[in-house]
Structures are given as structure tokens and as C-alpha cells.
């Protein structure tokens, strides 16, 4: 049987000092005669003591804020200027179609990355009055002309692409006859992480009508998905993944896109 007072949370409130004077006196009297509540109070004290030892971590590892600040300024740069919240349609369509044909690939990537950022951020935020993720995204065209790719952005998407290629290379060179289990978990986790980003890039790219790049990213997504969902490096799934990479000529296509200025 659980004591009713305990069930109602009174003991916690007592401990937290959230009871009125009268309730407090009553709880104290109750504690004197109820072992269960005394034990609960004791448990809470132990928990609180352990929590007090929880480390205070107030910065990224090593106190290095540089990456954090770079990402933040990239995200902020992709935002519409505060105060001006332009209406949706006008900026959107006109902006996209006017710009796309003129994009050099490096700038294009920066653009895509910015959109990805805003997609991510747009999804994450409960948008403040009237903001919509897609509006925010398209406004980013206006916020930063595509001729000026942010170096931080380019290097981020470049990293993503390089890491994806490494995973693919690792997968294609694995021996299907004797697949080793050691690195599989790492590879699978990495694939799962990359998958998320790839999907966002792909969406942004599609959004801007870049079908060639979107195709490459879609295939990459498929490989990463299969990898991330494989239980282990068994021969069958590994062969399946390798076939997929070969059939889609994925590595070559990635290199071509990449050499184009990623």
C-alpha cells in the first residue's frame, strides 16, 4: 500500500519547501508516524545530494566556442533580417527562379547549405507569429547573395560530403567473404548520422530544382539508409549495399559533383 500523502506528491513539495505553513506542519507530523514517507524523503535527499555533484558544463569541449559561433552566425546569416517579415509568395517564387541558373557550384552549395540550416532551424523552432519554415528558407536568398558563399557553410557541407564518400569507400572495399564485425557499429552509426544531413541537403536541392545533384543525394541516402539499418556486416546485406553503389556508379558521380566545386 502506498501512503496517500506520498502518492499526492506532498512529500516532495515538503522537501522543495513548496508547502504552506499549515501544510508543512501537517506533513511534519505525518512524517513522524509514517515510515514510508520518511523513506521517500530520505531517498529524495540522496537524489538531491547526487544531483549536487552533477558536473556544471558551461561550454563546448575545451571551452572552444569557435565552431559554435561559426554555425550560429551561418544560421543567423540565413535568417531574414529581424523586423522585416516579408510576405511569403512574392519573395519566394521570383527569388528562386531568377537565381538558380546563375549559380556557380560553390555558391550553389552554400545556398543549399543555408537552406538546410533554415530547414533544420525552421523545423526546430515553434515559429514566432506567422513565420513559416519555407518562407524563412526562401528569404535566405535575399539575405545573402549566392555569389558570397559563407566559408563556414561551405566547409560544413564539404565535410559531410567527404565523410559520406569515406563511408562508401569503406563499404565497397569490405571483403564480403569475411566481413569483420569490429567497425560495423561505428560505420552504421556514422551512416545514420550522415543520413539525416543528406536528407536535408537533398530536400533543399530538390526545392531549388537541381535535379542532377538531387539524384546523387537520393542514391547516397539509400545506401546510407540500408547501411544504418543493417544488423551486422553479414554477407548478404553487404553485397546488396555494394551492388547498389556500383550499379548507381555512386562514387564516380559523387566525385564529379564534388570536383565541380563542393
Amino acid at each position, binding site marked *: 500500500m502506498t501512503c496517500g500523502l506520498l502518492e499526492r506528491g506532498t512529500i516532495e513539495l515538503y522537501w522543495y519547501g513548496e508547502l504552506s505553513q499549515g501544510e508543512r506542519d501537517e506533513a511534519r507530523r505525518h512524517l513522524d508516524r509514517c515510515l514510508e514517507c520518511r523513506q521517500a524523503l530520505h531517498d*529524495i535527499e540522496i537524489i538531491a545530494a547526487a544531483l549536487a555533484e552533477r558536473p556544471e558544463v558551461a561550454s563546448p569541449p575545451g571551452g572552444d566556442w569557435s565552431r559554435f559561433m561559426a554555425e550560429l*552566425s551561418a544560421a543567423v546569416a540565413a535568417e531574414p533580417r529581424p523586423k522585416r517579415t516579408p510576405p511569403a509568395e512574392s519573395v519566394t517564387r521570383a527569388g528562386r527562379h531568377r537565381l538558380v541558373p546563375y549559380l556557380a557550384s560553390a555558391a550553389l552549395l552554400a545556398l543549399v547549405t543555408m537552406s538546410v540550416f533554415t530547414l533544420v*532551424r525552421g523545423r526546430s523552432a515553434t515559429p514566432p507569429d506567422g513565420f513559416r519554415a519555407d518562407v524563412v528558407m526562401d528569404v535566405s536568398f535575399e539575405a545573402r547573395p549566392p555569389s558570397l558563399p559563407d566559408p563556414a557553410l561551405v566547409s560544413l557541407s564539404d565535410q559531410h560530403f567527404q565523410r559520406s564518400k569515406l563511408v562508401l569507400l569503406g563499404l565497397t572495399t569490405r571483403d564480403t567473404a569475411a566481413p569483420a564485425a569490429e567497425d560495423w557499429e561505428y560505420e552504421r552509426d556514422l551512416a545514420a548520422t550522415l543520413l539525416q544531413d543528406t536528407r536535408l541537403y537533398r530536400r533543399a536541392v530538390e526545392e531549388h530544382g537541381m535535379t542532377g545533384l538531387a539524384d546523387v543525394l537520393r542514391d547516397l541516402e539509400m545506401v546510407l539508409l540500408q547501411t544504418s539499418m543493417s544488423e551486422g556486416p553479414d554477407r548478404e546485406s553487404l553485397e546488396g549495399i555494394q551492388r547498389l553503389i556500383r550499379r548507381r556508379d555512386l562514387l564516380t558521380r559523387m566525385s564529379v559533383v564534388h570536383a565541380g566545386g563542393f
Partner: protein
Amino acid sequence: MSDSDLIPRAAGGDPAAFQALVERHRPMVYRVAYQFAGNHHDAEDIAQDVFLKVFRSLDRFRYDAQLTSWLYRIVMNACIDHRRRQKSGGWVPGEEAEGTLLNMPEESPGPEARAYGGEIGQALEAEIGRLPAGQRVIFIMRHHQGLKLTEIAEALGLAEGTVKRQLHAAVHRLRHALTRANVLASANGAAGGGA
């Protein structure tokens, strides 16, 4: 320069002013985010979100309000949002299976977290990580920030009764988890019910 000097400048598009604001408040934001998330990866995500939201709503900041309490509110909501986002994933093929895969492996605690607290600390850390987002935020706010239940209720836009119940649920859950893990004294003596 004070916050109230920096905010209008940042709202007017001065990047240096915004950066100064971020630099001033990032330790607090990060600390809360880390307390909530228990790892750097998610803490950074949350902190990014917070400052982006700050940026977006600079022009709506009420100057009679304290920046720090406004920030607290944003941090708490960002923590809850972050969790919700992790859960919902949100894309098309193979959604469920993949969602599970992507969300399951929570980053293992950093060296800071691993160093603390022995058995109880570890069990506690694991269980805090399993609390539903709302409960976790309320619990963290109460314990680490020392906020009163009324303050939490106000910040989250919840009824005080709801906050009380959530806090109760969180503590209840932690107690039972620790009891199950055999790290609380009452686990040994009171397994069959003490009263």
C-alpha cells in the same frame, strides 16, 4: 555595455551587438542545455536553437523584462522542442524503423558526466535521460536552477498544478528507478512496503 543597450542595436542588425549578447549569455544557456541533455552534441544543438530564437524575436523583446528570465523561458522551451524533434524525425520512407535507429543511441555521457557520482550518479544520469522532456525540464529547473514551481509554471505557460504533478512524476520515477537499481537504501529494507 548593458543588455538593454545591446538589444536594440542587435535588433537593428548590428552583428557585433548580437555577438556580444551571445557571448555574455552563452555559458548560462549552455549550462542549462547540458544539464538537460547530458551530452555536448545535444547541448550545442539546443544552445544554437536558443540563440536563433533570440535573434528572431529581438525586436519583440519587452524592455521592462529581464533578459535572463526571458532567456530561461526560451531555453526551457528549446529543451522540450529538441526532444520532440528527436522523437518525431519527420521524413518519408521507412520512417519508423529509421526513426528508431537514429534516435535510439543517445550519445554516451561526456567525460565530465562520467566522472561524477559513482553508482547513484550513473543510475541517476541514465534515468534523467529517460524522463519525458517536460518532466525533465521541470526537474532540472527545480533542482539546478532552484526555480520555484510558480516561476516554472509561468515560464512554461502551464498551470501550477500541472507543474507539481510533473515534478512529482519525475521524482517518483527516479526514486523507483534507483530503487530497482539497488542504489537507494530503501530498496533493501522497504521492498515489501514499509508502512
